[in-house]
């Protein structure tokens, strides 16, 4: 079969610099010639794919089908590319079978993956689906976690899916994403539902090429299917006055939460605007105070009653003091570690000791890691250390909190368009924005939606996970 000739211009067009030039007004005409696509407007919010959902269940696996049924999502029959199924196209070449109209999502249930020959089925269902996938469409792999197998072959294959998923994510266009969920053999539809729903909906717009685990938890159908999972629940958000924190506060409020917005006293004016808009309450507080956790709990108990408990806390507050290590003194080093890490550790300890207004059993904690922490970043030794430590924190505390039904997770934002990142010089910013598979920066709401998914009572089976919200950034895992 003749191979497609590689056009050097096309290769050049995919470099970050070319994409950066492409989105500048001067570079527009050049960009058109180079063929750099403009950033696609992503589907966001609680919106489902427009097109149909195709379900590919290997060896009659049932977990995903049952989960989609629980969520009330209809599916269509999957198209499989086999030599027999191909037809001759206009040019006389064989064409794989196609879907009628655009496909909204392909969901692969690979929980019965056993042998390498099974992967041919995976290829067979991916090929037609990717050709038909709509803008902001979805490919979702659901497989058993590698460690859940005793036998070697399925175990290594389950790990192999990680590379497949990341590659699919890179090959998809038009804002479509691909993600992989590793489940436990005991995972039930109720436990998987919130994750599947998040991935199908626009809420996961900027989560791409990621893999994370869903474990085992009892989740009732009502909890799994509600649009307002936080109704009657109080959630505290630190750093809520602006940017990502304000988006988090608004997103939780949209989903029914009573939000306690926390920020430093100096940010009180902006904080008041946010909490008044969402009918929450403001707490002007420096979270590095030793008793910050106590003050948050006291605010909750005072404002919402002695029996009131926090359902969740989002540790969003963070600072940067960027310096190359050769220029970094002890002040810049410690300030970042205090705010981004130690404050969180201290607040968790106080909020978890059962005091009035503290964290309820069955509640959740979400922290913010960062691509910088996962991949390292020049000039951010302090920040990267603190953010990688958040990954450690989440992994260490998840098993400790499991018997109280409290989940702890983190998000890892990539390049998010905020006031803070707007200050980055133009060309550099363009490069950052474009250096990911979706070729655009994320919005604060993308981080917020992922946090709200992780903290959701329906996500009781999701704990100890770090989900990156980076559009599959070129750096890091």
């Amino acid at each position, binding site marked *: 079969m003749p191979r497609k000739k590689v056009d050097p211009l096309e290769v050049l067009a995919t470099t970050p610099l070319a994409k950066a030039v492409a989105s500048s007004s001067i570079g527009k005409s050049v960009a058109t010639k180079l063929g750099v696509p403009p950033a696609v407007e992503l589907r966001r919010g609680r919106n489902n794919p427009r097109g149909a959902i195709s379900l590919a269940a290997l060896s009659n696996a049932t977990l995903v089908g049952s989960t989609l049924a629980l969520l009330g999502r209809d599916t269509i029959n999957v198209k499989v590319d086999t030599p027999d199924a191909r037809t001759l196209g206009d040019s006389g070449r064989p064409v794989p079978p196609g879907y009628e109209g655009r496909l909204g999502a392909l969901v692969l249930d690979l929980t019965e993956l056993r042998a390498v020959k099974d992967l041919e089925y995976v290829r067979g269902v991916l090929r037609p689906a990717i050709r038909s996938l709509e803008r902001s469409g979805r490919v979702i792999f659901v497989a058993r976690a590698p460690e859940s197998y005793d036998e070697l072959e399925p175990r290594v294959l389950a790990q192999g899916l990680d590379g497949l998923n990341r590659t699919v994510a890179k090959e998809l266009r038009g804002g479509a994403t691909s993600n992989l969920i590793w489940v436990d053999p005991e995972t039930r539809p109720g436990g998987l539902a919130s994750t599947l729903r998040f991935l199908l909906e626009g809420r996961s717009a900027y989560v791409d090429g990621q893999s994370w685990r869903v474990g085992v938890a009892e989740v009732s159908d009502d909890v799994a299917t509600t649009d307002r999972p936080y109704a009657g629940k109080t959630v505290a958000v630190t750093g809520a006055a602006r940017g990502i924190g304000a988006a988090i506060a608004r997103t939780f409020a949209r989903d029914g939460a009573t939000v306690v*917005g926390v920020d430093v*006293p*100096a*940010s*009180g*004016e902006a*904080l*008041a*605007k946010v*909490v*008044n*808009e*969402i*009918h*929450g*309450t*403001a707490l*002007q*507080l*420096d979270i590095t*105070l030793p008793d910050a956790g106590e003050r948050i709990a006291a605010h909750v108990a*005072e*404002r*919402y*009653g002695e029996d*009131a408990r926090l359902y969740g806390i989002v540790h969003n507050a963070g600072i940067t003091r960027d310096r190359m290590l050769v220029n970094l003194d002890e002040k810049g080093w410690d300030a970042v570690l205090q705010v981004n890490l130690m404050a969180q550790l201290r607040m968790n300890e106080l909020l978890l000791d059962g005091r009035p207004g503290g964290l309820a059993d069955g509640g959740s904690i979400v922290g913010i890691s960062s691509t910088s922490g996962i991949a390292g970043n020049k000039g951010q030794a302090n920040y990267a250390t603190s953010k990688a430590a958040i990954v450690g924190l989440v992994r260490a505390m998840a098993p400790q909190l499991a018997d109280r039904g409290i989940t702890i997770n983190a998000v890892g934002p990539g390049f998010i368009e905020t006031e803070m990142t707007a200050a980055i010089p133009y060309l550099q910013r363009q490069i950052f924005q474009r250096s990911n598979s979706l070729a655009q920066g994320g919005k604060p709401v993308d981080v917020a939606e992922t946090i709200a998914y992780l903290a959701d009572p329906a996500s009781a089976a999701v704990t100890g996970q770090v989900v990156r919200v980076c559009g599959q950034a070129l750096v890091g895992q």
Partner: protein
Amino acid sequence: MTDHTAVVVGGNRIPFARSHGAYRQASNIDMLTAALDGLAARFGLAGHRVGEVVGGAVLKHSRDFNLTREAVLGSSLDAHTPACELQQACATGLEATIYVSNKIRLGQIADGIAGGADSVSDAPMAISDGLRHALIRASAAKTLPARLQALSSIRPGHLVPDPPGITEPRTGLSMGEHQALTTTRWGISRTDQDELALSSHLNLARAWSEGFFDDLVTPYLGVTKDQGVRADTTMEKLSKLKPVFGRGEGATMTAGNSTGFFDGAAVAYLAEAGYAAEHHLPALARIVDAEVAAVDYTLGGEDLLLAPTYAIPRLLERNGLSWQDFDYYEIHEAFAATVLATLDALSDETYCRSKLGLSGDLGEIDRSRLNVNGSSLAAGHPFAATGGRIVPTLAKLLHQRGSVDGRPARGIVSVCAAGGQGAVAILEAC
């Protein structure tokens, strides 16, 4: 009688800023709205229908005839919240607090907000009476010749605008000039005045650094702290300032021991005790009682700013308390000498007998209980905003103190005002 109890839930103000500075573009309505929004955020009042919002401004544009209601409409409070404009010069905020607490105690409202705003930077400028009369006559005229005739009465001198006055209309003296007379009469020394000013600055600075105002103040337009406070001031610096009021030996009042011009807004949130408990609102202090008095400073020659000396004994007697029965004294520092003259007058037997009709003087108080977290000399004094600053500050102090010798901690607020008036109120810790 009813069994309703009015309690102070909390308060909010914007930092007080030097006039013609950070808030120069902000109107009274803007600042009052900001104060209300910060309060709403603190207590989750967005969309809530408050019983009534009461307050006002001293320096006011005629277009702001419905200042308080306009501020409510611009805030995040439910638009069904009624508002009333009330003004009693510098005592506006305290009088508004008394008004709201009375309505709560009568069971007419369950919660209410009291306060005020004042901007020297955005002060109204009036046209002269001559020009105004000519324009009114012209607009009332029915024919063109009559209109022209009316306008022809305008003289060049009429075109000079009238700046807002802070002089007493009946005496032509400014407040500082009035106080200078009082200062001389009571023989208040420069050193005593400067010492009071110094402790006001040091106390306020300490309170800020301890985070006392973290839940009493919301930043505004980039200002995060009161601009008047000088943590580094000293007696030496204060003693170098030149007197600005009074003459000769009586010239002891300087910019350091007199309040300057400030812009700001402050509100206190009050509620009925049961309502507060039911709605998970903190009860910091109970409004026990209040008294307003006035002095005859025009023909009677009394001290313009010593009206509180009349109110205090009446209030004490009604409540069976002595002048020494308070754990905190919040006496508004219009001038350092006002506070000192007030204290001197109340411990002066002749004054208490002849002026106040008492059988003797009230005695001295423990000065360490006076304005413990600073007052107007350091914080600044945007006239109508001062009551809304003091009431929540005192309520929080009382609540933190809790009880003293088995009884609730007790405090008194005293605010003197233009027109020879003074408002005083007693609060008790909850």
